[in-house]
């Protein structure tokens, strides 16, 4: 339902065994559920709840997000470059939010 765009950064050609840094950002307002309209009505919460990163299908990193995460959530983490393949990123959240992005990795 939501149209969203994700930006991920994965080193394309790391050496085998190298620890690489991965950045994953997705556009999302992360509406906290604590803000109010100028009339005083609560603006309903609408956040990304979970982020998962899979390396050739195996989960290597997962995050549970709360309203204190800033808009357009950015997560930076590391993994060991073990093999070539695909790194997949999945964001899911309130109101059926779901975005999937992936990046190729070629280990040299």
């Amino acid at each position: 339902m939501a149209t969203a765009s994700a930006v991920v950064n994965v080193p394309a050609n790391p050496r085998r065994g190298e620890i690489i840094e991965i950045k994953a950002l997705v556009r999302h307002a992360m509406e906290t559920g604590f803000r109010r309209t100028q009339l005083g009505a609560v603006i309903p919460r609408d956040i990304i709840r979970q982020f998962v990163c899979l390396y050739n299908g195996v989960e290597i990193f997962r995050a549970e997000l709360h309203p204190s995460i800033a808009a357009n959530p950015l997560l930076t983490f590391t993994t060991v470059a073990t093999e070539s393949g695909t790194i997949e990123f999945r964001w899911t959240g309130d109101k059926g939010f779901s975005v999937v992005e992936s990046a190729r990795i070629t280990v040299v």
Partner: protein
Amino acid sequence: MINTPKVSRRSFIVGSAAVGGGLALGLRLPPFGPAVVRAADGSPEINVWVVIRPDDTVVIRMARSEMGQGTITGLAQLVAEELECNWSKIVYEYPTPGESVKRKRAWGDFSTGGSRGIRTSHDYVRKGGAAARLMLVQAAANQWNVPVSECSTVNGVITHGPSKRKLSYGKVAEAAARLEAPKDVPLKDPKNWKVIGKAVPRLDTRDKVTGKQVYGFDLKLPGMLNAAIKESPVFGGKVKSYDAARVASMKGVRKVVQVGDTAVAVVADTWWQAKTALDQLPVVWDEGPSAKVQQSNINDMLKAGLDADQAFVGNQEGDAKKALAGAAKKVEAVYAYPWQNHVCMEPMNATARYTADKCEVWVPTQDGEASFAAVLAASGLPADKCEVYKINLGGGFGRRGAFQDYVTQAINIAKQMPGTPVKLLWSREEDMVQGRYHPIMQCKLVGGFDAANNLTGLHMRLSGQSILKEVRPAIVEQQKGRDPLTFQGVADSGEHSFGYNYPNLLIDHAMRQSHVPPGFWRGVNINQNAVFIECFMDELAEAAGKDPVEFRRQFMAKHPRNLAVLNAVADRIGWTRPAPAGVHRGVAQMKAFNSFVAAACELSVKDGNKVKIHRIVAATDPGYAVNPAQIERQVSGSFVYGLSALFMQECTVKGGRIVEENFNTYNSMRIAQMPKVESIIMPTGGAIWGGIGEPTICVAAPAVLNALFQATGKRIRSVPLKNHGFQLV
């Protein structure tokens, strides 16, 4: 006399002497290191507030910023009172925010807003002076090998009574700096004050009359370039494109850079070259939906809020709506207060130098820590690689505290030219259209009377902008959407509490936001609230057939300090005696920033529209008056600020942007229009210290508007008066 030192007061700064105490606290301290913290010139620091040079010069450190209000002189008086130093030997310096962070905020809050420079730091800066004195005395006593109880201090000299030996502070400063600070530091009883309460001369006058004072605008650094900037004139708009090639070859131009999403800057050898090129630079803006907003849309939105069902309650007693429904007579009025710009004489500016290893900013700022926070955020560097150097301000008035947009811009530009210091100066036009404006507000007031003409209820409905909703939304969220600051001056409690009690009262706020960014404008929300309530009090008095001062007094039984300042101005102006022929009077009073203020004025009107204000009497009860001469100047200056706003100043929106771009359309008072201002400073002591810089502004406009009604029979209910054809002469 001196307490046995136990735990170091600065275990994080000193080395060997404090290691034991420091470790006991779990702090890691270097096992070796200098025992004495030294200022840049090598002089010993007695404590964070006081450095004493061998020649007896006393350096007093100031975390707050001087912007004309005289705060550094007042703060120095507080330290000097307890330090018992020689006033003529005092100089001051600003510690840097970076140093403060390193030393765990040793200097506390840097914020210089809310009239709080002195009132929220008087306790700890006095203790800093007192502790330093105790250490100096201890050092002298140690040298003489006598008890401290036999030593006394006067004007920076320690005397051993029995032997009549003397040592100046400079002679024992080294030894004193090696002592640990006393734990309990008694402060003088105010009745023994010798420096506080005196009109001692300001510390910063001389360079201001010779042109030597360096403002941010005047800064020169080796290899420095100058930048002129233009941000989207429609708030929220973005840069779509710009044609740098068109100006790239102009003389002196070094670089054209985009600054964030919203602005473009030209960097050149001189600022005039940069500005000339910027004026010729074609920029296409994506102005966004706000480009459609006109002033009439805003006014209509606020007007609708006056009768909206929902509003946030700020102050309530009894049941005002019921009382009004059953009233025998009702009085109703709608008031309006516009957007206004601070217009500091020195436009916004900041100078930045960025490398991957260091980001430094020189800036006139009301809050060094806010500037530092902006540097951390914009540079992306850690705190130990950032620094801010504060420069005295060419006016602040609330524009240079909570908002550090110019700092962020300067860093953004400097990051695009690593290693080169870049001085970003705003033109007056940029300063006018990129303000953080006094919030726009309308107000509907309804008062009800019973058959005997007694006031039975009052409803004050505010409709307009919340500052905090935009600037500190966390506070508004905690208050379930309400902005408590909107009710300054009419609040149910606190430092801006209402000075009247009515049988039934309701003050509420229909929040109506706009794309025009609101800010803290000297006095903040007391300005419009004083106009609304104090003018309406006169309307109610008229409806009740009573004298305005007499009418007010009925509701002030629980507010003796409000009443005292009101009575003081009424007495001094001769309220109960007839005014000279053709001269008319008005009054107003309010509590703001924990001070109580009132004003009375005398004016006459010629040709139906030329207003001459002959005389203003202003009373202030700030609890404590640290420097009466500077208070007088703040009070008389407040009428320049407040009456300029009343007569001349309004920022309006056309096509989403601010129309008024300079003093030709946004004027400010000149000396010919300045009334004679008599100040009554009447501090009543107590536990709470009040502010000085802001409170008096708010009584200027209602006192004059009330007198104007007496003179003309016209109730003017919207600011500025130029829109009603009135001129200040």
